Structures are given as structure tokens and as C-alpha cells.
């Protein structure tokens, strides 16, 4: 699973740059030895191997500035006459057969800003030929690694034209994102409902699920993704259950306060996230299956079969959860414990067992959500943390403690995030979701379906 490539080191170096005030006191940012402005990069194929002989052209206002060709190490550099805004074009004719750019129009990067004394790296993400080329509305990572490319922010707008088409397409994207958030958020809401703990480490269960599925579906085991997903769900459930038995139950037995447990969950999240970083590396990976797909055109919207199945499966899973909560005994017990802890206990329900089941189910669901998220976006080490804030937004909007609220809230959050790109830049889409979170907390802290309990 750990490939020793320069990109991994670059990613961790970027991570270290993030840690404020590194031990050295040199200014941050990229500098070349001869302090001239330049544009450079490394062209790699989807497996990470450098590509030789790929031609890159840089042009500024007034024409072509320079051309470079990648060497044996895949690297290219074009020196610039000065700082400013440039356009970088990759000559797709010089790409080998079998690779193409990931985004529609991603071979041209416009509005690449070069600051004084900056030798700026630009990245052209490449995918196997025949993959559905994505629009640039894929999620930017909140904590940037070296792959926070200008390409993500400045790549071409969606291939289909027309206002309503675009709105409908974004609605579909929003439902897709919302469905994934919904599966993961249900567990969060149930855990809060039964134990009053806001589990900060829930995001790491998501990441764990995605990574376990990745591990099982790539060499040397190379199981089909469906089987790997089953393992992932099992791993997620196991981790959730272990956390409950080993950490939360003893703490509850000791009478630990909610604030104390909340801060502990933050520590668990921090710890797990970076252990996963060490194990997995900092590169974004894709699952090997289902990456290459043609979009289906369903009327005005287009969606890949993979994404469609993800949405349908998410819906089925949510229906399954609803069925469990309404019709089964354990579901009824869960609702009872969430409603009134002491009364449920006094009526003979084994609260500890119910809580354990909640953690098992929540962990499994989170892991499944992670697999879906990895399928539709990519698998990377802090995917869970990015999703966590959206989960909070969805859960609080819907009402903490209510599983159905979590579903509704998550769908709304997903829609808001995607629809905001109609008017605002893509990089801000998560900011709107978080603003929704804050506004809901101010105006109606119990959310849509929550009970009016004291949130203050």
C-alpha cells in the first residue's frame, strides 16, 4: 500500500509546511535558487510513473512565452520573464495513448498567477483514456497537500451548456453528495441520540472504511470491490464497537462529563487520522475498479452508472436503517434509549447493549459511506475530516439525535454545497454548508426534526 514516490514526500512536506512556524524561520513558499519566476511541474501517468516527451506550452498576454518537454523524470520547467498571469497548455498529442486529462478541458490551465520570485508548480491530473472526464466541481480538499492544483480551481466549466441543464446536473450532484453524507451522518446522529456524545472521530471511521476497501481491492489481494466493501463495513463496525467497549463505556461508567468526552473524541480523531496518514500515504488514490466509465445520459442530466448505483444503494441502505428503527426490537430499543435513557433502562432494556449495537451500526454505515465517497471522489487520508464538518452541518440541520433528520439535513447540505457553485467559486462550496450549520445553530438549534431541548 505504501509506494515510495517523490509525490508522497512532497505531500508530507506540504503537510509540514502547514504546521505553523516550522522550526526553520525561512519564509514559506516556493523559491528557486536563481530567484526568477518560472512555471514547472512533473507529468505522471495514473499509476504515478513519469511520462517523457510530453510538451507543455506557456503563454501570457501577447503570445507564447516558452515551451518545454518533459525529460526522463517527467519534469518540465519554463522560465518566465516576470510575475503575472499565464496560461499553461499541455499538448495532448504528445501524451501517450491510454492517458487523458482528468477534467474536461483540463489540458489548458488559464489564470495561473505567478507571484514575484515564485517558481510555481502546476499539475495536470491524468486518468486512463476512456474515463468519464469530470467537471471541476469535484471536492477541493480543505487541507491542501501538494496536489492542491490550480487545475481544480480553474479547469473548464461543465461540458453541457444551458442554465437549467446545469442546475439539474448540480441537483443530481448534490443528491449524490448528500446521500453519501446521509449514510455517514446517520451513525453520528444515533450515537448522539443514545449517549449524548458528539463523536468527533466519526470522520476517521469513514476514512478507515475507504482505506480498508482500497487495501483489499488492490494488489496483492485484488478482491472485487464489492467484496472489499464488505470487509470495509466489517472493519468499520469492529472499530466502532471497540471504541465503545474500550473507551466510551468505561468513561461513562466513571461518570465522565460530556465536555471531557468530547475533547477525548477530538484526541482520538487526531490520533487516528495521522496513523492512517502514516499507513496510507498522502496521495489521493482511486479504486482500480469502476474508475473507467462512460456517463449515462438521462435526459438533461448525465451521471455515470457507478454514481447512479451509489445513490441507489445509499437510498436502499437508508431505507434499511429506517426499517430497522421502526420495525425491529433493537431499533425500538434504540429509539427508546435516545428518547429517555433512564426510563428505557428501568423498563428492562439493556442500555449498554443497545449503545454497542448503535456503535456497530454507525461504524459500519460510516465505513460504507467512506467506500462510496472514495468511489465518487478519491481515497485520501483526511477525507473523513472534510466530510465530518459536512456531517455536522447535516446532522444539526436535521436535528441531532434524529436519524431521519440526519438524512434530510444531509441531503439539503449536499444540495446547498453543489448549488452554491452556480454563483460562487467551487472552493467556497463547503463554506456555505458550514454557514448553514452556524445559522441553524443560531436560529433553531434543534434543527428540523429535533426535539426542543436546551441547546444552551
Amino acid at each position, binding site marked *: 500500500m*505504501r509506494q515510495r514516490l517523490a509525490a508522497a514526500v512532497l505531500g508530507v512536506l506540504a503537510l509540514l509546511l*502547514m504546521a505553523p512556524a516550522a522550526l526553520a*524561520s525561512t519564509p514559506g*513558499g516556493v523559491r528557486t535558487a536563481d530567484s526568477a519566476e518560472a512555471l514547472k511541474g512533473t507529468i505522471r501517468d495514473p499509476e504515478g510513473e513519469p511520462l517523457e516527451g510530453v510538451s507543455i506550452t506557456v503563454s501570457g498576454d501577447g503570445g507564447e512565452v516558452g515551451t518545454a518537454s518533459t525529460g526522463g523524470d517527467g519534469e518540465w520547467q519554463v522560465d518566465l520573464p516576470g510575475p503575472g498571469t499565464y496560461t499553461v497548455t499541455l499538448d495532448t498529442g504528445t501524451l501517450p495513448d491510454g492517458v487523458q486529462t482528468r477534467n474536461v478541458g483540463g489540458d489548458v490551465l488559464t489564470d495561473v498567477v505567478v507571484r514575484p520570485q515564485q517558481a510555481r508548480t502546476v499539475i495536470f491530473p491524468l486518468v486512463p483514456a476512456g474515463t468519464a472526464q469530470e467537471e471541476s466541481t469535484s471536492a477541493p480538499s480543505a*487541507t491542501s497537500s501538494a496536489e492542491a492544483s490550480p487545475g481544480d480551481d480553474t479547469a473548464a466549466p461543465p461540458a453541457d451548456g444551458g442554465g437549467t441543464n446545469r442546475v439539474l446536473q448540480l441537483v443530481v450532484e448534490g443528491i449524490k453528495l448528500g446521500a453519501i453524507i446521509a449514510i455517514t451522518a446517520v451513525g453520528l446522529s444515533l450515537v448522539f441520540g443514545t449517549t449524548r456524545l458528539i463523536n468527533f472521530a466519526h470522520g476517521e471511521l469513514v476514512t478507515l472504511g475507504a482505506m480498508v476497501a482500497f487495501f483489499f481491492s488492490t494488489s496483492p489481494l485484488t478482491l472485487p470491490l464489492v467484496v472489499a466493501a464488505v470487509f470495509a463495513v466489517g472493519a468499520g463496525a469492529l472499530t466502532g464497537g471497540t471504541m465503545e467497549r474500550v473507551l466510551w463505556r468505561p468513561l461513562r461508567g466513571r*461518570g465522565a462529563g*460530556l465536555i471531557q468526552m468530547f475533547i477525548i473524541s*477530538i484526541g482520538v480523531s487526531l490520533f487516528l487520522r495521522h496513523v492512517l496518514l502514516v499507513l496510507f500515504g498522502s496521495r489521493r488514490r482511486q479504486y482500480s475498479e469502476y474508475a473507467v466509465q462512460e456517463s449515462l445520459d438521462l435526459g438533461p442530466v448525465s451521471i455515470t452508472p457507478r454514481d447512479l448505483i451509489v445513490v441507489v444503494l445509499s437510498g436502499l441502505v437508508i431505507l434499511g436503517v429506517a426499517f430497522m428503527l421502526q420495525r425491529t426490537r433493537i431499533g425500538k430499543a434504540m429509539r427508546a434509549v435516545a428518547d429517555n435513557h433512564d426510563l428505557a433502562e428501568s423498563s428492562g432494556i439493556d442500555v449498554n447493549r443497545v449503545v454497542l449495537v448503535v456503535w456497530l451500526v454507525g461504524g459500519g454505515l460510516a465505513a460504507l459511506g467512506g467506500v462510496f465517497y472514495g468511489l465518487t471522489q478519491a481515497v485520501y487520508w483526511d477525507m473523513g475530516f472534510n466530510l465530518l464538518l459536512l456531517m455536522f452541518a447535516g446532522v444539526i440541520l436535521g436535528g441531532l439525535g434524529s436519524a431521519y433528520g440526519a438524512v434530510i439535513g444531509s441531503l439539503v447540505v449536499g444540495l446547498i454545497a453543489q448549488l452554491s457553485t452556480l454563483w460562487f467559486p467551487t472552493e467556497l462550496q463547503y463554506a456555505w454548508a458550514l454557514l448553514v*450549520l452556524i445559522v441553524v445553530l443560531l436560529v433553531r438549534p434543534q434543527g428540523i426534526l429535533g426535539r426542543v431541548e436546551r441547546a444552551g
Partner: protein
Amino acid sequence: MDWLAILGNSVRGMLGPEAAIYALAAVGLNVQFGYAGLLNFGQVGFMLVGAYGVAVSVATFGWSLWAGLLVGILCAVVLALILGIPTLRLRGDYLAIATIGAGEVLRYFYRSSYLEPLTGGVFGLRQFANPFFDANPFPPGRYGVGPVTFDARSLWVMTVGWTMVLLACVLVALLIHSPWGRVLRSVREDELAARSLGKNVYGFKIQALVLGGVFGALAGALLAVNVQSVQPDSYNPVVTFYLYTIVILGGASRVMGPVLGSIVFWFLVTFLDSFLRQATSSGLIPTSVLEPGDVGAVRFAFVGLALILLMVYRPAGMIGNAKELRLDVR
């Protein structure tokens, strides 16, 4: 394994500019969390506005550093009011989520292409603090004892930083041992009781938030000046988690708690860093277990583990008063 170098690095880390900066921010957080009981998880947001206040004023508008500092403090006050007025009536963990969200929203906006002409977007701003370093009274050279040496630049930042920390601690001590401080602590203990005695609980919380936020902004400004650059992605929630670890480690609700916490924290983290770097590069730890590039991630994992262990076994920290800050009671 060059233990002398590792120890030297660790002592340098615990006395250096980062420790001072984090101590200052932690003093601010201590006022909000330790004394007022506010679970403010957006302290990094205050550092962000303080840092950008200085940077934008100098780099984009061309004002002086002092003006920039004032702008940073003003921004922190405004942020505290915007953040506090709506959210302070929220319960502990809700407030935490709201403030994390607010910090992240700020970071997204500062980093967005909208504000790029002002803030430099994703790339941030740099080279705006030359007047500060021109005023450095220490002539160039290295100062120190044995393996613990600092260059003149770092020494200057350290001097300024620790002086600010000292002044902040004096201010906090005076405030806390005054009637204002007593009311603040009573608000933390039992809001209803304080309110029933006629105290304006809301006002006290806002004041604590503003004061803590100003200290955070000063810390952020010093951080920006120290590295002569601001980048939005270095002001992420993990910084706040570090600050909480520092405050809890030292002992929340004690004046010198955060300072002690910062010193010990940076000693341990730098020790771990140096040790792991040497161990992985010398082969003491085989590369199948840990690679030199992973050392940074191990540092974060260690902080997370420290936070867990502290909160489970000793929420009072080193010099905290276990009876005063009853974090472990529902």
C-alpha cells in the same frame, strides 16, 4: 544517535519563538476556556485575522507595522463580537462545533479567489515585516550556550514574544484576582446562580471572548512576522487542538498554566521530532515501520494521544487545580 543534538533541539524548541507564540495564544484560550468555561474551538480563527490584519495592512495597503497590529487587534474584537453575540448562549459542545465551523469558514474565505487581491488567496502574502527586523538590537551572530543557540533574528522574536506573554500573564493575573475574575469563574461554575445574583452573564462571556481573542490575534500577528509570511492553510483546526492540549497539559484556569504547558509541550514535541528523525535516518527504526517523511504525521498523532491520555487520567494537567476546573463532571 546524537543525544546532545536532540536535547539541544528540544531546549531550543521549548524556548523558541513558536513556544512563545503558542503560549500567548494559549493564555487567550485559557481566559475563554479555563476561566469562562467557553469551549471556543475557533481560536485559530483569531490568530488568522490577527496575522492577516498585519500582513494585509502592510503588504496590500502599505501601512506601518504598528498600524497593521492595530488592525489585527480590531479584527479580532470584531470577530469576537460577531462570533460571540449569536453563539454564546449555546451549550458547550454546540459552541465548539459552531466555532470550528466559523474558523473554517474564515479560512475558506481568506483563501478564496474572491479575496485574492486583498489576501493573496491560496498563496498568501509574504515579506511584510522588514521594519520589525530592522529594529533588531541584537547584532548578527549566534547567541546561546552549548548546543542551545539562537540566531539574532530568532532571539529578537523570542524576546518580543516572551515579553508579550509575560505582560499577558500579568494582565490576566490582575483581572482574575479582581471582582471581574470572580464573577467570570462563577459564570463558568453555575450560570444560573450568577444570573440570579443579577450579574450580566452574557456580557462577561463576551468580554472573556474578546480578551482571549485579542491575545490570539497578537499571537497570530507575531507568528506572521516571525516567518514573514501568511498562508491560510496553516491556520487550520489542528492548531486549535494543539492549543487545547497546551492549556490542558499546563493546567487550565491557572495563570501560568498555559505558559508551562507550551514550554513542556514544545519540549516533548521537538524531542520526539528530533529523535524520530535521527532514528529513521540512522536506521534504528527500520523504514518498514516508519519513514523519515512520516515523522511530521507522527507528531500530530502523538499530540492526539497526549490529549486523550490527559483528558482521561489527568484533566487538571500539571499545575491545574482539580477541584476548580471540574471538566470531569457532567
